[in-house]
Protein backbone atom coordinates (compact mmCIF):
# COMPACT_ATOMS: atom_id res chain seq x y z
CA UNK A 1 0.00 0.00 0.00
CA UNK A 2 1.27 3.48 -0.79
CA UNK A 3 1.88 6.07 1.90
CA UNK A 4 -0.97 8.15 0.50
CA UNK A 5 -3.37 5.23 0.88
CA UNK A 6 -2.15 4.51 4.40
CA UNK A 7 -2.54 8.16 5.31
CA UNK A 8 -6.09 8.12 3.99
CA UNK A 9 -6.97 5.08 6.11
CA UNK A 10 -5.34 6.70 9.12
CA UNK A 11 -7.19 10.00 8.73
CA UNK A 12 -10.41 8.08 8.11
CA UNK A 13 -10.06 6.39 11.49
CA UNK A 14 -9.33 9.69 13.19
CA UNK A 15 -12.36 11.31 11.55
CA UNK A 16 -14.57 8.46 12.71
CA UNK A 17 -13.26 8.85 16.26
CA UNK A 18 -11.53 5.47 16.16
CA UNK A 19 -8.51 5.62 18.45
CA UNK A 20 -5.06 5.04 17.01
CA UNK A 21 -3.20 2.27 18.86
CA UNK A 22 0.58 1.68 19.06
CA UNK A 23 0.75 -1.02 16.39
CA UNK A 24 -1.43 0.86 13.89
CA UNK A 25 0.21 2.59 10.97
CA UNK A 26 0.58 6.33 11.60
CA UNK A 27 2.30 9.17 9.75
CA UNK A 28 5.83 9.88 11.00
CA UNK A 29 4.90 13.47 11.78
CA UNK A 30 1.98 12.29 13.94
CA UNK A 31 4.33 10.02 15.89
CA UNK A 32 6.89 12.81 16.24
CA UNK A 33 4.33 15.32 17.42
CA UNK A 34 3.01 12.87 19.99
CA UNK A 35 6.47 12.00 21.29
CA UNK A 36 7.29 15.68 21.71
CA UNK A 37 3.99 16.62 23.28
CA UNK A 38 3.59 13.62 25.60
CA UNK A 39 7.18 13.78 26.78
CA UNK A 40 6.82 17.50 27.51
CA UNK A 41 3.74 16.66 29.46
CA UNK A 42 5.60 13.93 31.36
CA UNK A 43 8.49 16.26 32.16
CA UNK A 44 6.02 18.86 33.44
CA UNK A 45 4.60 16.36 35.90
CA UNK A 46 8.08 15.46 37.13
CA UNK A 47 9.59 18.95 37.28
CA UNK A 48 6.27 20.13 38.70
CA UNK A 49 7.00 18.17 41.86
CA UNK A 50 9.93 20.47 42.69
CA UNK A 51 8.18 23.76 43.57
CA UNK A 52 5.72 21.90 45.78
CA UNK A 53 8.34 19.57 47.20
CA UNK A 54 9.94 22.69 48.62
CA UNK A 55 7.02 22.93 51.08
CA UNK A 56 6.54 19.33 52.15
CA UNK A 57 8.83 19.75 55.14
CA UNK A 58 7.48 23.24 55.84
CA UNK A 59 3.75 22.56 55.64
CA UNK A 60 1.95 24.18 58.61
CA UNK A 61 0.44 20.98 60.02
CA UNK A 62 0.73 17.23 59.84
CA UNK A 63 -2.54 17.09 57.90
CA UNK A 64 -1.28 19.56 55.29
CA UNK A 65 1.99 17.68 55.04
CA UNK A 66 0.21 14.38 54.41
CA UNK A 67 -2.04 15.97 51.77
CA UNK A 68 0.85 17.64 49.97
CA UNK A 69 2.86 14.44 50.04
CA UNK A 70 -0.06 12.56 48.48
CA UNK A 71 -0.46 15.20 45.78
CA UNK A 72 3.22 15.22 44.88
CA UNK A 73 3.18 11.42 44.80
CA UNK A 74 0.28 11.58 42.34
CA UNK A 75 2.33 13.85 40.09
CA UNK A 76 5.16 11.30 40.05
CA UNK A 77 2.60 8.71 38.95
CA UNK A 78 1.36 11.03 36.20
CA UNK A 79 4.91 11.36 34.95
CA UNK A 80 5.21 7.58 34.80
CA UNK A 81 1.91 7.07 32.92
CA UNK A 82 3.08 9.58 30.35
CA UNK A 83 6.62 8.22 29.98
CA UNK A 84 5.01 4.83 29.37
CA UNK A 85 2.79 6.34 26.69
CA UNK A 86 5.92 7.75 25.00
CA UNK A 87 7.49 4.30 25.15
CA UNK A 88 4.57 2.84 23.18
CA UNK A 89 5.62 5.13 20.32
CA UNK A 90 9.04 3.50 20.19
CA UNK A 91 11.10 6.11 22.02
CA UNK A 92 13.09 4.57 24.86
CA UNK A 93 12.62 6.04 28.33
CA UNK A 94 16.33 6.88 28.65
CA UNK A 95 16.19 8.98 25.54
CA UNK A 96 13.20 10.92 26.85
CA UNK A 97 14.87 11.57 30.18
CA UNK A 98 18.16 12.48 28.56
CA UNK A 99 16.37 15.09 26.44
CA UNK A 100 15.04 16.69 29.61
CA UNK A 101 18.41 16.71 31.34
CA UNK A 102 20.23 18.16 28.34
CA UNK A 103 17.75 21.02 28.13
CA UNK A 104 16.50 19.94 24.71
CA UNK A 105 13.02 18.94 25.81
CA UNK A 106 10.67 21.51 27.30
CA UNK A 107 8.34 21.34 30.23
CA UNK A 108 5.64 23.74 31.33
CA UNK A 109 7.21 27.13 32.08
CA UNK A 110 5.04 27.60 35.13
CA UNK A 111 7.37 25.39 37.14
CA UNK A 112 10.21 27.85 36.65
CA UNK A 113 8.64 30.21 39.18
CA UNK A 114 9.58 29.98 42.88
CA UNK A 115 7.26 29.02 45.75
CA UNK A 116 7.92 31.76 48.26
CA UNK A 117 5.20 31.25 50.87
CA UNK A 118 2.79 28.56 52.02
CA UNK A 119 0.00 30.37 50.15
CA UNK A 120 1.84 29.54 46.91
CA UNK A 121 0.95 25.89 47.47
CA UNK A 122 -2.70 26.91 47.57
CA UNK A 123 -2.32 29.06 44.47
CA UNK A 124 -0.60 26.24 42.59
CA UNK A 125 -3.37 23.78 43.39
CA UNK A 126 -6.09 26.23 42.49
CA UNK A 127 -4.59 27.96 39.43
CA UNK A 128 -1.86 25.70 38.08
CA UNK A 129 -3.62 22.38 38.56
CA UNK A 130 -6.83 24.14 37.53
CA UNK A 131 -5.28 25.19 34.22
CA UNK A 132 -3.70 21.77 33.71
CA UNK A 133 -7.02 20.02 34.32
CA UNK A 134 -8.78 21.95 31.53
CA UNK A 135 -6.09 20.82 29.11
CA UNK A 136 -6.16 17.27 30.42
CA UNK A 137 -9.93 16.93 30.26
CA UNK A 138 -9.69 17.86 26.58
CA UNK A 139 -6.89 15.32 26.11
CA UNK A 140 -9.03 12.47 27.47
CA UNK A 141 -10.50 12.47 23.95
CA UNK A 142 -7.19 12.70 22.10
CA UNK A 143 -6.82 10.39 19.11
CA UNK A 144 -3.90 8.31 20.39
CA UNK A 145 -5.22 5.51 22.60
CA UNK A 146 -2.45 5.20 25.22
CA UNK A 147 -2.33 8.99 25.69
CA UNK A 148 -6.10 9.20 26.08
CA UNK A 149 -6.15 6.38 28.63
CA UNK A 150 -3.35 7.95 30.65
CA UNK A 151 -5.33 11.20 30.67
CA UNK A 152 -8.47 9.51 31.97
CA UNK A 153 -6.53 8.10 34.91
CA UNK A 154 -4.79 11.41 35.52
CA UNK A 155 -8.02 13.40 35.47
CA UNK A 156 -9.54 11.12 38.10
CA UNK A 157 -6.57 11.79 40.36
CA UNK A 158 -6.35 15.49 39.62
CA UNK A 159 -9.74 16.34 41.01
CA UNK A 160 -8.46 16.50 44.57
CA UNK A 161 -5.45 18.61 43.61
CA UNK A 162 -7.42 21.68 42.70
CA UNK A 163 -9.77 21.31 45.65
CA UNK A 164 -7.01 21.03 48.23
CA UNK A 165 -5.35 24.14 46.77
CA UNK A 166 -8.55 26.11 46.91
CA UNK A 167 -9.14 24.97 50.47
CA UNK A 168 -5.68 26.16 51.55
CA UNK A 169 -6.51 29.61 50.15
CA UNK A 170 -10.00 29.55 51.62
CA UNK A 171 -8.60 29.01 55.11
CA UNK A 172 -6.03 31.79 54.61
CA UNK A 173 -8.67 34.13 53.22
CA UNK A 174 -10.59 33.84 56.46
CA UNK A 175 -7.52 34.22 58.65
CA UNK A 176 -5.51 37.06 60.16
CA UNK A 177 -4.71 40.17 58.09
CA UNK A 178 -1.24 38.72 57.47
CA UNK A 179 -2.73 35.47 56.18
CA UNK A 180 -5.15 37.32 53.93
CA UNK A 181 -2.29 39.38 52.54
CA UNK A 182 -0.24 36.24 51.96
CA UNK A 183 -3.15 34.69 50.07
CA UNK A 184 -3.61 37.76 47.86
CA UNK A 185 0.13 38.05 47.22
CA UNK A 186 0.37 34.44 46.04
CA UNK A 187 -2.54 34.93 43.65
CA UNK A 188 -0.98 38.13 42.32
CA UNK A 189 2.23 36.29 41.51
CA UNK A 190 0.68 33.13 40.04
CA UNK A 191 -2.14 34.63 37.98
CA UNK A 192 -0.23 35.71 34.88
CA UNK A 193 2.10 32.69 34.72
CA UNK A 194 -1.03 30.51 34.93
CA UNK A 195 -2.55 32.25 31.91
CA UNK A 196 0.74 31.71 30.10
CA UNK A 197 0.39 27.96 30.68
CA UNK A 198 -2.01 27.82 27.74
CA UNK A 199 0.76 28.86 25.39
CA UNK A 200 1.05 31.47 22.64
CA UNK A 201 -1.99 33.14 21.16
CA UNK A 202 -3.77 31.37 18.37
CA UNK A 203 -2.64 32.23 14.90
CA UNK A 204 -5.17 32.70 12.17
CA UNK A 205 -5.23 29.15 10.97
CA UNK A 206 -6.26 27.46 14.18
CA UNK A 207 -8.72 24.99 12.81
CA UNK A 208 -6.73 23.95 9.82
CA UNK A 209 -3.88 23.14 12.13
CA UNK A 210 -2.41 19.68 11.91
CA UNK A 211 -2.87 18.82 15.59
CA UNK A 212 -6.55 19.62 15.25
CA UNK A 213 -6.92 17.59 12.06
CA UNK A 214 -5.26 14.66 13.76
CA UNK A 215 -7.45 15.28 16.80
CA UNK A 216 -4.48 15.27 19.12
CA UNK A 217 -5.91 18.60 20.31
CA UNK A 218 -9.53 19.63 20.20
CA UNK A 219 -9.41 23.14 21.54
CA UNK A 220 -7.10 26.01 20.76
CA UNK A 221 -4.89 27.74 23.32
CA UNK A 222 -7.15 30.77 23.41
CA UNK A 223 -10.31 28.70 23.81
CA UNK A 224 -8.82 26.90 26.81
CA UNK A 225 -7.47 30.13 28.27
CA UNK A 226 -10.88 31.79 28.02
CA UNK A 227 -12.50 28.79 29.66
CA UNK A 228 -9.97 29.11 32.48
CA UNK A 229 -10.51 32.82 33.01
CA UNK A 230 -14.30 32.43 33.10
CA UNK A 231 -14.00 29.64 35.66
CA UNK A 232 -11.45 31.33 37.92
CA UNK A 233 -13.09 34.76 38.05
CA UNK A 234 -16.22 33.22 39.54
CA UNK A 235 -14.27 31.11 42.02
CA UNK A 236 -12.20 34.11 43.11
CA UNK A 237 -15.37 35.75 44.40
CA UNK A 238 -15.71 33.00 47.00
CA UNK A 239 -12.17 33.67 48.17
CA UNK A 240 -12.82 37.38 48.34
CA UNK A 241 -9.61 38.12 46.48
CA UNK A 242 -8.84 40.21 43.43
CA UNK A 243 -7.09 39.07 40.27
CA UNK A 244 -4.24 41.36 39.23
CA UNK A 245 -5.70 42.53 35.94
CA UNK A 246 -7.46 45.90 35.66
CA UNK A 247 -8.79 44.94 32.24
CA UNK A 248 -10.69 41.98 33.62
CA UNK A 249 -14.39 42.53 33.07
CA UNK A 250 -17.54 40.75 31.99
CA UNK A 251 -18.40 41.09 28.33
CA UNK A 252 -22.12 40.45 28.01
CA UNK A 253 -22.04 40.42 24.23
CA UNK A 254 -19.46 37.64 24.15
CA UNK A 255 -20.71 35.87 27.25
CA UNK A 256 -17.12 35.74 28.48
CA UNK A 257 -14.74 37.76 30.59
CA UNK A 258 -12.39 40.10 28.78
CA UNK A 259 -8.87 40.16 30.14
CA UNK A 260 -5.63 42.04 29.61
CA UNK A 261 -2.67 41.23 27.41
CA UNK A 262 -0.15 38.68 28.60
CA UNK A 263 3.48 39.76 28.79
CA UNK A 264 4.74 37.66 25.88
CA UNK A 265 8.31 38.81 26.33
CA UNK A 266 8.31 37.24 29.77
CA UNK A 267 6.65 34.14 28.36
CA UNK A 268 9.31 33.53 25.71
CA UNK A 269 12.06 34.40 28.14
CA UNK A 270 10.98 31.70 30.55
CA UNK A 271 10.47 29.20 27.74
CA UNK A 272 13.97 29.91 26.50
CA UNK A 273 15.50 29.17 29.85
CA UNK A 274 15.74 32.57 31.51
CA UNK A 275 12.99 32.22 34.08
CA UNK A 276 13.67 32.64 37.79
CA UNK A 277 14.24 28.91 38.41
CA UNK A 278 15.03 27.21 35.08
CA UNK A 279 18.60 26.38 36.02
CA UNK A 280 17.72 25.33 39.53
CA UNK A 281 14.99 22.96 38.32
CA UNK A 282 17.19 21.19 35.79
CA UNK A 283 20.04 21.01 38.27
CA UNK A 284 17.71 19.38 40.77
CA UNK A 285 16.56 16.79 38.21
CA UNK A 286 20.11 15.95 37.15
CA UNK A 287 21.24 15.71 40.75
CA UNK A 288 18.35 13.41 41.66
CA UNK A 289 19.20 11.23 38.68
CA UNK A 290 22.91 11.02 39.48
CA UNK A 291 22.45 10.50 43.19
CA UNK A 292 19.84 7.83 42.52
CA UNK A 293 22.28 5.80 40.43
CA UNK A 294 23.29 3.56 43.33
CA UNK A 295 19.63 2.70 43.99
CA UNK A 296 19.12 1.62 40.40
CA UNK A 297 22.35 -0.38 40.47
CA UNK A 298 21.46 -2.01 43.78
CA UNK A 299 17.99 -2.96 42.55
CA UNK A 300 19.46 -4.56 39.45
CA UNK A 301 22.06 -6.45 41.49
CA UNK A 302 19.42 -7.63 43.92
CA UNK A 303 17.15 -8.82 41.13
CA UNK A 304 20.05 -10.77 39.67
CA UNK A 305 20.84 -12.35 43.02
CA UNK A 306 17.22 -13.27 43.61
CA UNK A 307 16.95 -14.84 40.15
CA UNK A 308 20.12 -16.88 40.79
CA UNK A 309 18.79 -18.08 44.14
CA UNK A 310 15.49 -19.12 42.59
CA UNK A 311 17.29 -20.97 39.81
CA UNK A 312 19.31 -22.82 42.42
CA UNK A 313 16.22 -23.84 44.36
CA UNK A 314 14.61 -25.21 41.22
CA UNK A 315 17.71 -27.22 40.34
Amino acid sequence: MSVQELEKIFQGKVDQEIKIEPKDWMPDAYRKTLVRQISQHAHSEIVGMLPEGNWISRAPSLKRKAILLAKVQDEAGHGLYLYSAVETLGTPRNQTIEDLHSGKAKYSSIFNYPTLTWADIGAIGWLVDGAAILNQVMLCRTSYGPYARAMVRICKEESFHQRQGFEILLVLSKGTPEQKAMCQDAINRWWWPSLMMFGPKDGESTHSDQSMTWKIKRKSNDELRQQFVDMIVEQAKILNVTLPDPALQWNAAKGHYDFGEIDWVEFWNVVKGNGPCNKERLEARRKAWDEGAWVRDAAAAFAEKRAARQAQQVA
Partner: protein
Amino acid sequence: MNIRLTKYYYGDIPEENTGGGAGTVTVKDVAGWPLWEVFIRSKQGLDHKHVGSLQAADAQMAIENARDVYTRRSEGISIWVVESKHIHASNPDDAGAFYEPANDKVYRHPTFYDLPEELKHM
Protein backbone atom coordinates in the same frame (compact mmCIF):
# COMPACT_ATOMS: atom_id res chain seq x y z
CA MET B 1 7.17 38.37 1.21
CA ASN B 2 6.78 34.91 2.57
CA ILE B 3 5.51 34.83 6.13
CA ARG B 4 5.43 31.48 7.81
CA LEU B 5 3.07 31.30 10.70
CA THR B 6 4.09 28.84 13.35
CA LYS B 7 1.61 27.88 15.94
CA TYR B 8 2.27 26.11 19.16
CA TYR B 9 -0.25 24.42 21.31
CA TYR B 10 -0.50 24.23 25.04
CA GLY B 11 2.17 21.82 26.18
CA ASP B 12 3.77 21.66 22.78
CA ILE B 13 6.56 24.18 22.66
CA PRO B 14 9.18 23.40 20.02
CA GLU B 15 12.42 21.87 21.19
CA GLU B 16 15.76 23.58 21.05
CA ASN B 17 18.79 23.59 23.25
CA THR B 18 17.92 26.54 25.43
CA GLY B 19 15.89 24.89 28.13
CA GLY B 20 17.88 26.01 31.14
CA GLY B 21 21.59 25.81 30.91
CA ALA B 22 22.30 22.93 28.64
CA GLY B 23 25.32 21.01 29.76
CA THR B 24 26.91 17.72 29.14
CA VAL B 25 24.58 15.09 30.38
CA THR B 26 25.18 11.47 31.01
CA VAL B 27 22.12 9.35 31.38
CA LYS B 28 23.29 5.84 31.88
CA ASP B 29 21.11 3.00 30.80
CA VAL B 30 18.57 2.30 33.54
CA ALA B 31 20.51 -0.87 34.24
CA GLY B 32 18.50 -2.37 31.40
CA TRP B 33 15.33 -2.81 33.44
CA PRO B 34 12.69 -4.53 31.38
CA LEU B 35 9.23 -3.18 30.70
CA TRP B 36 6.26 -4.86 32.40
CA GLU B 37 2.57 -4.75 31.57
CA VAL B 38 0.30 -4.41 34.59
CA PHE B 39 -3.13 -6.02 34.99
CA ILE B 40 -5.39 -5.30 37.92
CA ARG B 41 -8.48 -7.02 39.30
CA SER B 42 -10.54 -4.20 40.76
CA LYS B 43 -12.73 -6.48 42.85
CA GLN B 44 -13.43 -10.11 43.50
CA GLY B 45 -15.44 -11.61 40.65
CA LEU B 46 -14.11 -9.34 37.91
CA ASP B 47 -11.40 -10.00 35.33
CA HIS B 48 -7.91 -8.58 35.55
CA LYS B 49 -7.73 -5.60 33.23
CA HIS B 50 -4.71 -4.01 31.59
CA VAL B 51 -3.97 -0.67 33.26
CA GLY B 52 -0.55 0.36 31.98
CA SER B 53 3.10 -0.48 32.12
CA LEU B 54 6.23 0.25 34.10
CA GLN B 55 9.90 -0.59 34.28
CA ALA B 56 11.26 -2.81 37.05
CA ALA B 57 14.26 -4.99 37.73
CA ASP B 58 12.20 -8.12 38.37
CA ALA B 59 8.65 -9.37 38.86
CA GLN B 60 8.48 -8.67 42.56
CA MET B 61 9.65 -5.10 42.10
CA ALA B 62 7.17 -4.73 39.24
CA ILE B 63 4.31 -5.82 41.52
CA GLU B 64 5.41 -3.49 44.31
CA ASN B 65 5.75 -0.55 41.94
CA ALA B 66 2.41 -1.37 40.34
CA ARG B 67 0.86 -1.25 43.81
CA ASP B 68 2.33 2.21 44.39
CA VAL B 69 1.46 3.58 40.98
CA TYR B 70 -1.85 1.97 40.04
CA THR B 71 -3.65 1.23 43.31
CA ARG B 72 -3.18 4.32 45.46
CA ARG B 73 -6.94 4.73 45.77
CA SER B 74 -7.89 1.10 46.33
CA GLU B 75 -8.36 0.46 42.62
CA GLY B 76 -7.36 -3.16 42.99
CA ILE B 77 -7.22 -6.32 45.08
CA SER B 78 -4.98 -8.36 42.80
CA ILE B 79 -2.13 -7.51 40.45
CA TRP B 80 -0.64 -9.44 37.56
CA VAL B 81 2.54 -8.35 35.85
CA VAL B 82 4.05 -9.82 32.73
CA GLU B 83 7.16 -8.75 30.89
CA SER B 84 6.05 -6.89 27.80
CA LYS B 85 8.30 -8.98 25.55
CA HIS B 86 6.23 -12.07 26.38
CA ILE B 87 3.05 -10.61 24.96
CA HIS B 88 2.20 -11.69 21.45
CA ALA B 89 -0.42 -9.75 19.59
CA SER B 90 -2.51 -10.17 16.48
CA ASN B 91 -1.69 -7.83 13.65
CA PRO B 92 -4.09 -4.87 13.41
CA ASP B 93 -3.52 -4.63 9.64
CA ASP B 94 -4.90 -8.15 9.19
CA ALA B 95 -7.91 -7.49 11.40
CA GLY B 96 -10.33 -7.55 8.46
CA ALA B 97 -9.35 -10.94 7.12
CA PHE B 98 -8.56 -12.33 10.57
CA TYR B 99 -12.04 -11.80 11.98
CA GLU B 100 -13.89 -12.22 8.71
CA PRO B 101 -14.98 -15.85 9.41
CA ALA B 102 -17.29 -14.53 12.14
CA ASN B 103 -19.20 -12.23 9.82
CA ASP B 104 -21.25 -14.75 7.86
CA LYS B 105 -22.29 -16.84 10.85
CA VAL B 106 -25.28 -14.85 11.93
CA TYR B 107 -26.87 -18.03 13.30
CA ARG B 108 -24.49 -17.73 16.26
CA HIS B 109 -26.63 -14.89 17.55
CA PRO B 110 -29.93 -15.53 19.36
CA THR B 111 -31.70 -12.88 17.28
CA PHE B 112 -31.27 -15.10 14.18
CA TYR B 113 -34.16 -17.33 15.26
CA ASP B 114 -37.73 -16.31 14.53
CA LEU B 115 -39.86 -17.88 17.22
CA PRO B 116 -43.56 -17.43 18.15
CA GLU B 117 -44.35 -14.60 20.58
CA GLU B 118 -46.18 -16.88 22.98
CA LEU B 119 -42.97 -18.77 23.70
CA LYS B 120 -41.81 -17.51 27.11
CA HIS B 121 -38.59 -17.64 29.09
CA MET B 122 -36.30 -18.34 26.17
